[in-house]
């Protein structure tokens, strides 16, 4: 029987869909305790001595985290101080092995789960169907983390204005060189607003300064794993595909039936995006 701890953000009062799913899948392997913890603080401040915290979590076989940049900071803090290995991008957990996604979804590596591990769950974790049985895991009391100083002096925070954060977005609308000119982005913005999607672009677009760099999705930009990704006028260079492979469903709009993205999408529509997108806007509810 394993001792398992799951560390969740103390700011959210309910368990996420992912965590609920994971608990259902692994609860027969041992005892599970869920701890709310100051995950945001771990991302912005340096850690002080945390004897109590480290002693507490040194008792577990597995410590699980959801994947966001702040929780990875905390996972690494524990990993630096406890005799445990850390695995990221975990997509499957069983009694014998842990599977991690590699090569942006093109491959997977498996490790023995019979060792003490800190596991960071991928957004592409293979969730099974949720049973209707209600979650009977009570939250343990919060464990305090001690911080020393801020990691740096904040000069300026540029918040994304009422836009949806790209790495965490459920839906994403991306556009590429098929847009022909930055002044044509109006229909893409309308489509993203209608769907409630974050905006993305391909590398040439951010290189041309048509769109900001933080919208660049691909091998050297941001990686996304939304439920739905709609790519408009993006040919689908392998570097772009590497950033979007984790998407559940991909719809591609492209005038070129030979574009590599067509073969790598779930659904493709061959046509002029300046005709297709307005037609979609009319028909999406």
């Amino acid at each position, binding site marked *: 029987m394993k001792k398992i701890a799951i560390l969740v953000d103390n700011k959210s009062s309910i368990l996420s869909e992912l965590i609920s799913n994971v608990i259902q899948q692994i609860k027969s392997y041992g005892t599970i305790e869920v701890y709310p913890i100051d995950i945001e603080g771990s991302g912005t401040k340096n850690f002080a001595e945390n004897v109590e915290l480290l002693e507490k979590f040194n008792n577990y076989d597995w410590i699980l985290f959801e994947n966001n940049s702040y929780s990875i900071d905390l996972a690494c803090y524990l990993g630096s101080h406890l005799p445990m*290995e850390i*695995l990221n991008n975990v997509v499957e957990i069983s009694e014998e*092995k842990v599977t991690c996604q590699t090569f942006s*979804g093109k*491959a997977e*590596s498996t490790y023995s789960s019979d060792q003490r591990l800190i596991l960071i769950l991928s957004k592409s974790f293979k969730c099974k169907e949720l049973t209707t049985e209600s979650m009977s895991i009570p939250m343990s009391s919060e464990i305090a983390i001690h911080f020393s100083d801020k990691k740096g002096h904040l000069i300026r925070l540029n918040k994304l204005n009422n836009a949806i*954060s790209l790495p965490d977005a459920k839906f994403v609308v991306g556009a590429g060189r098929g847009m022909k000119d930055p002044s044509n982005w109006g229909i893409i913005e309308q489509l993203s607003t209608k769907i409630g999607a974050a905006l993305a672009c391909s590398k040439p677009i951010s290189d041309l300064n048509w769109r900001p760099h933080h919208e660049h999705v691909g091998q050297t930009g941001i990686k996304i794993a939304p439920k739905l990704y709609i790519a408009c006028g993006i040919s689908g260079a392998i570097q772009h595909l590497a950033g979007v492979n984790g998407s559940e469903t991909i719809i591609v709009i492209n005038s070129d039936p030979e574009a590599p993205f067509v073969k790598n999408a779930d*659904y493709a529509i*061959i046509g002029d995006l300046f005709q297709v997108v307005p037609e979609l806007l009319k028909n999406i509810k």
Partner: protein
Amino acid sequence: MNILVCIGIVPDTTSKLVIDSATGKIDKRSLTMIIGPYDDYALSKAIEIKEQNNATLSVVYVGDDASAETLLRKSLAIGADEAFQIKVPAISSKQVATEIIHFAQKRSYDLILMGKESIDSNNGLVHRLVGNGLNFNHFSPVMQLDVLDPQKVKIHVEVPDGTADYEVFLPAVFGCQEPIAEWKIPSMRGIMMARTKPLTVIDPLLQPTIKQFNDQIIEKNRLKRVYKLEDTKEIADIINNLIN
């Protein structure tokens, strides 16, 4: 100012991955190996800082890839002063970080740069673990970096709700991503000079301990249907189903 850049060696993005039936792992012999693209950005930025601030620049690689010497010579050719290989099979992030921490503790670095993640494991853990191990300030992914004075840098970094500018005291370790610098290509003169620059192979502190089984290649045949322009309504229905 002393700068250290940590590089990983990874298969080129366009490589076709194949499993070696003898080991059950990805067969690296058939692949073109490159310096990790993000690490390459970190290295390019470090060279710019070195040139502007008269700094010294070392490169370290933890691993036993066959192309290590060629790629470390390349990093010397584009401007690094010396290169080190800690020769051991690199299996886990913690193992690699432990080697880098041990290496850096014996020297004195003000700034340690590497890519925000490798393109094979996509982990992004090593820079965090190195920051913890050395007690350095840490940020990632850093997109702009300017040296203000020998003790302080200004960075532009992605944060969960947007981007932010920070002034950070050195020593610090940063995970880098574009557009921090443009990739550099070695010049003929650089290649000649690299031949006489020091490249040292070091024994590891420890052997990997994590138990790894095997790798699998994931083939996704996504394509379900290709539609024509006049079928746009059907696509709209698919979208409606997915978003509601």
